[in-house]
Each structure stands twice: as structure tokens, then as C-alpha cells.
């Protein structure tokens, strides 16, 4: 765990986190929306808060923004304790799902809103606005009103307005969820690209795991007001720290089982697992991702090997790049399995509904989580 002691001096060398959230709690009356949140975010990072709706992502973001302060705990930004600073004295730009563009001001005026009133000469503001418009790829749209733009264009203007003042931190609250799927995928790349170009530390709130996986340097997975796991997209995906993460990110087969000496027991099957630190004889949930279930060539049925299962195909759905295949296994009892088999494998091994085959569940891909935790 992190050392609780941090240097108070504003000397921000590279190792010091840019944003440091320490033991933050948020209560709305009796309801506790955030529990003991501790999190470090480094300069230039793109971090996503990911979790189901209502888990407290926006609440955490608003605490960071000083819009609705945490009830307990401290937040430091760039070495400065901002825990009790009002929004206007913090250093961030923010983009909301609703865009919150001022409807009666032109796009230019919107972007210039944070630049005016700062003593900057008009010409400089104009140049900066033009530069920002070009940056977000809408150089011709300055004189239009927000309502005359498409949703995606509006979101880019909101982004331009937020970064106009060169904030140290960029906060995005579900910036893409009001857009339709095509635009969304396109804008993901643009935002990520922009962030890389500017190097601005960015926090994005989303409930869309694909968005988080494709954009974030690190993902903070949240559930019921607590952080379940913090890690890079691959860490989160390959080594989920909790069953919740395993289940929420991607897809997974969950099977109730018992842990026994480095393996899980399900029905008659015993599957070796990489999971550690579990009590022998303890009830666990075994988890394995559909794409980690490997089909083996014919001939393995008769030779039982560790982590091999003989299965029967009950049904198959074609999902474009792979076949989603439902399997049952005598040794697993009633519990069905879902596996994703590539088109190649299906063709090569002649997998079809009703067929019997052997699959391998590689030990390091078989996860286990203590139950009732």
C-alpha cells in the first residue's frame, strides 16, 4: 500500500502523483456514496472511472471539481491541498454529458468565454479560439450557434471550451454517452489523440467498458462507492482483482466451486488455478473467460489431462468474428459453459451443435474468488 507520508513541499518531481485523493468519503444524508477512496493519478495520465450506473463515479468527479465536496478526506492537486477550495480556485476544465454549451452565444463566444475577462487582448483571444477550433477539427463553424451543430460537433466545442484556459486537469463526465454509436467510436479516438497531443491529465467517467478499455491509460473500477481495482486495461481484463471486476469487464463463466490445494473442484472436475491466498476447502467462485477456453483437436477424449474437460456442444451463435458456443460437460454437472471459438477453429475441428470435443481451461486463466466476501 501507499505510504501515508507525503512530502508537503510543493516540489513536484516526476514521481509525485499530480492528483492525490486520500481516504475520501461522501455521504448524502444517511446514504454513503463514496467509501474510503484513495487514489493517485500521475501527470499526463488518462484515467477512466468505470462502473455501473449509480456507483459513485460522478460523485467522485464532482468532489475533485469542487462542485460537491467530499464529506471526509483530502484531495491534493499539483502539490496543493485543494480539499476545501471552491471550484473557481481549482485548476481544471470540465465537459458534461449535456455539453452545457451556452445556447445564445456563438461557438466562438462559447470557446472564448473563459478567455475573456482575463485582460487578454482581443486579437490574442481570436487567435486562440481559431487555434482551438482547428484543434477539434471544426475550423469553419465558429459563427454558428450550438443548436445548429450535430451532437458530436457540440461535444467537440465543449471540449475546446474546457481546454481553452490550459487547465492542469481535464474532467469528462460521460462525454460520449449522449451520442450515437458511430460518432462515439470516432470521437473516442479524437479525444484520446487530443489528450496525447496536449499531455493534459485527464479523468473520464464512463459506464461503458469498451470506452474505458480503448481510451484509458489506467482504469479505476468502482462499485457501490468503493474502488474495486485500479490498473491498466490489460491488467484489469486479464487479472481482475475481484469477481465484480471479472464479471463487469468483458464476459466470464462463473461457476460455484470449492478451493482445494491450488485447484478448484467443480462436480467431479478438478481444475488447477493460478489463484492464490485462498483457504483450502473454502467456497469460491471459479471464473474463466469464454475466449480462454481452448478447443483441442480430436483424440484428447480418452486421455484425461489436467484442466481438460470433455464437453458437448449444445448450441452455437455466429457473431461475426467468432462463434459463441454453449457447452455442457458431464463432469461439471448441470453448469453450462460459454466459449468463444474462432471461425478457423470451428471449421478445422468440425465443431457443430451436438458434437463432442475436449477443451482446455489453462490453469493461469482459471480464476477463483472467495465467495461471500
Amino acid at each position, binding site marked *: 500500500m501507499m505510504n501515508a507520508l507525503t512530502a508537503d513541499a510543493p516540489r513536484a518531481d516526476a514521481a509525485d502523483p499530480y492528483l492525490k485523493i486520500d481516504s475520501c468519503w461522501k455521504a448524502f444524508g444517511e446514504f454513503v456514496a463514496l467509501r474510503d477512496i484513495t487514489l493517485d493519478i500521475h501527470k499526463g495520465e488518462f484515467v477512466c472511472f468505470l462502473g455501473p450506473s449509480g456507483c459513485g463515479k460522478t460523485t467522485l468527479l464532482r468532489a475533485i471539481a469542487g462542485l460537491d465536496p467530499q464529506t471526509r478526506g483530502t484531495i491534493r492537486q499539483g502539490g496543493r491541498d485543494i480539499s476545501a477550495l471552491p471550484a473557481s480556485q481549482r485548476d481544471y476544465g470540465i465537459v*458534461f454529458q449535456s455539453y452545457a454549451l451556452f445556447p445564445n452565444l456563438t461557438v466562438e463566444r462559447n470557446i472564448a468565454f*473563459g478567455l475573456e475577462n482575463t485582460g487578454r487582448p482581443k486579437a490574442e483571444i481570436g487567435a486562440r479560439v481559431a487555434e482551438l477550433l482547428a484543434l477539434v477539427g471544426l475550423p469553419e463553424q465558429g459563427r454558428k450557434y450550438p443548436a445548429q451543430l450535430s451532437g458530436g460537433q457540440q461535444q467537440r466545442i465543449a471540449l475546446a471550451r474546457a481546454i481553452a484556459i490550459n487547465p492542469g486537469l481535464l474532467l469528462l463526465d460521460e462525454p460520449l454517452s449522449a451520442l450515437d454509436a458511430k460518432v462515439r467510436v470516432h470521437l473516442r479516438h479524437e479525444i484520446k489523440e487530443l489528450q496525447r497531443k496536449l499531455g493534459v491529465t485527464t479523468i473520464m467517467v464512463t459506464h461503458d467498458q469498451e470506452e474505458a478499455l480503448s481510451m484509458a491509460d489506467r482504469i479505476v473500477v468502482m462499485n457501490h462507492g468503493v474502488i474495486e481495482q485500479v490498473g491498466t486495461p490489460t491488467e484489469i481484463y486479464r487479472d481482475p482483482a475481484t469477481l465484480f471486476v471479472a464479471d463487469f469487464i468483458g464476459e466470464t463463466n462463473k461457476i460455484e466451486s470449492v478451493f482445494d490445494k491450488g485447484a478448484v473442484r467443480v462436480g467431479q472436475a478438478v481444475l488447477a488455478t493460478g489463484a492464490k491466498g485462498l483457504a483450502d476447502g473454502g467456497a469460491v467462485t471459479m471464473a474463466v473467460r469464454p475466449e480462454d477456453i481452448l478447443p483441442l483437436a480430436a483424440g484428447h477424449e480418452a486421455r484425461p489431462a489436467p484442466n481438460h474437460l470433455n464437453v458437448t456442444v449444445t448450441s452455437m451463435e455466429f457473431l461475426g468474428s467468432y462463434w459463441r458456443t454453449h457447452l455442457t460437460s458431464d463432469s461439471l454437472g448441470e453448469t453450462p459453459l460459454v466459449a468463444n471459438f474462432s471461425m478457423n477453429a470451428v471449421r478445422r475441428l468440425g465443431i457443430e451443435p451436438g458434437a463432442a470435443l475436449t477443451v482446455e481451461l489453462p490453469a493461469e486463466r482459471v480464476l477463483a474468488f472467495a465467495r461471500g466476501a
Partner: protein
Amino acid sequence: MAETSTLPAGRAVKLKLDRDGIVKRGFMALIGLYLFAALALPLYAMLSKSFVTYGFDLTRYEFQVSDESGTVWGDPVSAASLNDALGKFSDADLASSSDGRLAVTDLFPDFSFKSPVKYRLRSTTADAPYLVGLDLQRTTDWQEFDSNTFRRVNLRPVTTVGLQNYVEYFSNPALFSSIENSLFISVISTVLTVGLAFGFAYALNRSCIAFKGTFRLIAMMPILVPSLLPGIALIYLFGNQGFLKGLLMGQSIYGPLGIVIGSVFFTFPHALIIISTALSIADQRQYEAAESLRASSWRTFWTVTIPGARYGLISAAFVTFTLVITDFGLPKVIGGQYNVLAIDIYKQVIGQQNFEMGAVVSVVLLIPAVFAFIIDRQVQKKQVSLLSARSVPYQPKPNRRFDMLMFLWCLIVAFFIAGIIAVCQMAALVKFWPYDLSLSLKNYAFNRMDGGGWAAYWNSLQLAAMTAVAGTAIIFTGAYMVEKVDGFRAGRALFQFFAMLPMAIPGMVLGLAYIFFFNDPANPLNFLYGTMAILVISTVTHFYTVGHLTALTALKQIDAEFEPVASSLRQPFWRLFARVTVPVCLPAILDISIYMFVNAMTTVSAVVFLYSTHTALASVAVLNMDDAGDIAPAAAMGMMIFYTNAAARILHAFASRRILGRTQAWRAR
């Protein structure tokens, strides 16, 4: 997981206030203070006044009388025992008012101002004032007077706090009957108005008649005139010299009949707006369902239409009821000997200078008004939820017989309303009713009548303009603070309460409360008394609530994220307010200002207690000229108010359209 589940001990983090926060709270405190001083304190002053009674307490004074030489003094004797011995004053005689005086010589039958006998007087308690000449004495020391001075000594009444005034009020059958009268005319008028307005609204929303726009326009006209104007028209038609007097078959228009007819006139548009809104949110699909079930149109009406409009009907009924029961102008003009609560307040205060009793009647009048207000708020909340669930709007289909009936209904109502206005216009232009019917403008020569003359009209115009500008600024800013300040919950809730309160306070009550509060010499705000400013303040306060609600509705439609965005851009809130909030809300702001303007032009009830000779108002001039028997000039002044408000309305419509047109670019999707 092992994380603890309860909040660690400690204090909640509170954000430091930045300049914005301070300014916002400052603004809210300022406007809150305004409402407090212009509403809460006067009402409190009035309420406490209603519990105060004045009377002479003879037990608190002692006398000593000397012999002829002026040196040998008799024993001290209390005023009470002197009175008992004489049997001079009964308890009722000792009741008094705030400026009562009791000559002490009345207690000494042998008193002669030429006698050499001397007198001593002292108060036995600190709270027993008396006057020597004009000098108020408050001392418990003996004071000696020669007989010539002694005749100028008067006792002053002392105050007692209690329910005495209320007891007196409720044991006075004349006063008590006003409650009955008020309830009677209010209930009858409400039933009639709501019935007529429902039919009218039904025609506008559910039939295919022609001239809907014209009908709607005519129906709205009463809003533009003072409530007493129909009274004047009715006098012309059915009064002692009225040419339609025969139609009444011996009934007198002066009294409940006149009040009810006039009330239907001036409350009609208010009821119509509410019911029409309720009917316009009907769901087409419910009617289609009823049709497919082959329900008769009569059954559909009772099972679909009425339940759908019920909140509107209830709300309209309460609004109408409140308007009638709190109205003062109409019963004043056409009530004759028929007393109602609002008239009683006026009579007690202006006629008898009995302010305490006026306060008691005010409290009595407050009860139904507050009650109606609370019910109306409850109903409004339900109506709103109905509105948000709306779906396919109803499309009426032509039906000749039904449309014919509806058209006739509208025609009769429109004829009634336009007729009243037309009669007033005629009265204003005719030379000498009913003897010389040629036309002239001499009734508009207000300077030749009592009531304030043309100056009163210009005063009214000034009041209306100032109320529109100041009122709109105060109301909109206040609503912004309630809606867009974060944190400071308790303060905002309190503010909201104060903003809603004026709706429940009848104008007469507010006006009287202002007398108590502002006319108190000890009040530092006393300098406002008798000025134009107090008229503006009372009018803004009187009409605060509707403006506040209009502003809130507009503000609620603005994205709540504008303020966070502005502060993240480190921009002060007032830049956002001026550059975005106000421009976006401009239509609502214009609506508030025209509402304030029109009401300031027509209001009588609150200002009737507060105007002074140099701040006479047009609406009050109508009342006073009518009182003086100058009915034609009264009608002419009423019509001046009508022209002005009509012009203001047209200007408003024009301005609204222009602003919407100019800003269409950003409103269009």
C-alpha cells in the same frame, strides 16, 4: 471486502467561500431582507396590533388635594376609588383607543379652575402615562399643579395584550355578518365563474368553432382594468338611473347581485387561463379508447374529461374564491349597504380610525385566503405531474350541433365582457347620462374633479413603470439565487417560503400591515411612508409570487451545468448571469414585467391605505370619484387604465416577438 462501512469521525469538509459564493449569498440575503422587511415584519406588526387594546387604568394613579390655603394636604386617594365613589365612568367608558384622553378634572366634581386649591398627581407604576398640556409624563413622583394647570391634565390609556378585540369582533353581529356575506358572494361567484369559464375553455380546446382567437382576446380584457370598473358599468345599466333597471324587477343592483356579476367579470380570465391549461393537456388516446369502447359522449365527458381537468377546476375555484373574497374595489363601488370583510377593514381603518379592529378583520380575512392558497399549492403540484406525463394532444373533430352550442356560449360570455367595457367607454364619453347623450371629452378633464386629477394618472404610470422594472429585477434575481445557488439549503428554503407567502396575503391586509409597520415613528424606514417608494414596494411585494414562479419555471429549463462550467472557467457568476441566463430567460422576464405593470395600474386594495395627496393613483381616483358621485369621470379614468394596459400589452407582444425573432437562430434546432 474489508473496508469499513461507516463514515470516520470528524467534521464534514466545507468549501471555502469564494467571491462568487459571497456575492450570491449577499444578494440572496439582500432580497431576503427585502421580503422580510416588506412582508414579514409588517404582517407581524399587524398581527400583534390585533391583540392590543387600549383603556384607562384608574388604579395606577393617585391624587392629593390641598385645602384652600394650598398648604394642608389631604390623604392620597387612588383615581379608581374616586371613580367608584362618584360612579362617573363605567368599564365601557374606560375602553379607549391609541389616542384617547381622559380629563382628570372629571373625577373632581367641585373642581374650579379659579380656586386656590392645589392638586398633586402621581403614577403608582412606571407604565401609567398622563399628559400635562401636550407633555407626556411618565414618572412615579408626585407632581403638584395649581387648579388652572390641573384642568389641562389628561390621563392616557394603557395597552393590554389579549384576545379582547377578537371577543369584541365576534360578539358584534354587524361585523360578524360580514363573514357570512363574504363567504356567500365568494361561493356564488366562484361557482358561476368556474362554470362559465369551463364552458368557454371547453369551446376553445374541444370544439371547432370560428373566432377562437377573438374570443380568447375578449376574455382576457378584464385583466386590464381595475376590479371596480364592472361596478361602474353595472351602475350605469342597472343603477338608480340605469336604463335597464326595469330588467331587475325591483331587485337592487347595489348589493350582492352587483358584487357577484362584477366578480364574475373580473375573475373570469383568471379561471379561464387555469382551466384552459388543464384541458389543453388532455391525451387524445384516452378519448380514442373511450370511443372504441363505444362510450356515449356524455359518459366520456364525465369519465375522461372531468377527471382529467379536475385539478384545473379545483385550482381555478380556489383562485377565484380568493380573488373575490379579498377584493375591495367592487363591493366599495356597488356593495351599497352590503358589508363584506374587505370593506370592514377599510371602514374600521379609514372611517373609524380603529386600527386594532381593522387588524382583527384582516386576520379573519387572512384565514380563508391562506387556506385557499395551501390547497391550491397542493393541487398545482399534482397538476404538474399530470403535465409531465402528457402524450398525444387532443384534436377536436367538427360536430355541427355541438359547435353551434359552444359558439353561442362563447358569444354570450364575450358579449357580457365586451359589453361591460363598452358601457364604461360610453359612460366616459356621454355628456350627461341619461339626459344629454351627446358625446364629449369633458369627463376626461380629471383636473376639474377630486381624486387627484391627471396627476393621479401620471403617478400610476410611474408606479407601473417602476414596479415593472424594479420588481422584475428583484424577482428574477431572487429566483436565480434560489434556483442556482448551491449549498445554503436552509437559507434557500426560507427564501422560497417568503417568496410564496405574498400570494396568500390579501392586498387590504398588506396595506394595513404597511401602515402599522411604516407609520411607526420608531421605525427607521418611517421616511418611506407617504412616498412613491412605499407604493412600489407594496405593489412589488403584493404581486411577487406569480413573478417568482414564472422566473423559476424559466430558470429550471436552463441546464444546471452552466454554473459549474462557468466556475471551472474561473468566470464570475454575474458574467454568466448577464451573458447567458438573462438573455435566455428574456421572454419570461418580459412576461414578469408586463404582469407587474398591468397589476400596478389596476391594483386598489394594497395602495388604498398608502397613497398620499401627492401620490394619488388612477385606480384609487376611480374609487374616489365614484365615491364623490362623479361616476362618468370615474369611468373615464377606468378607461384610461384600460387603454394604457392594452397599449402595454401590445407593446409587450411586439417586443416578445421581436426578441424571439432576433434570437431564433439559436433557438431553432
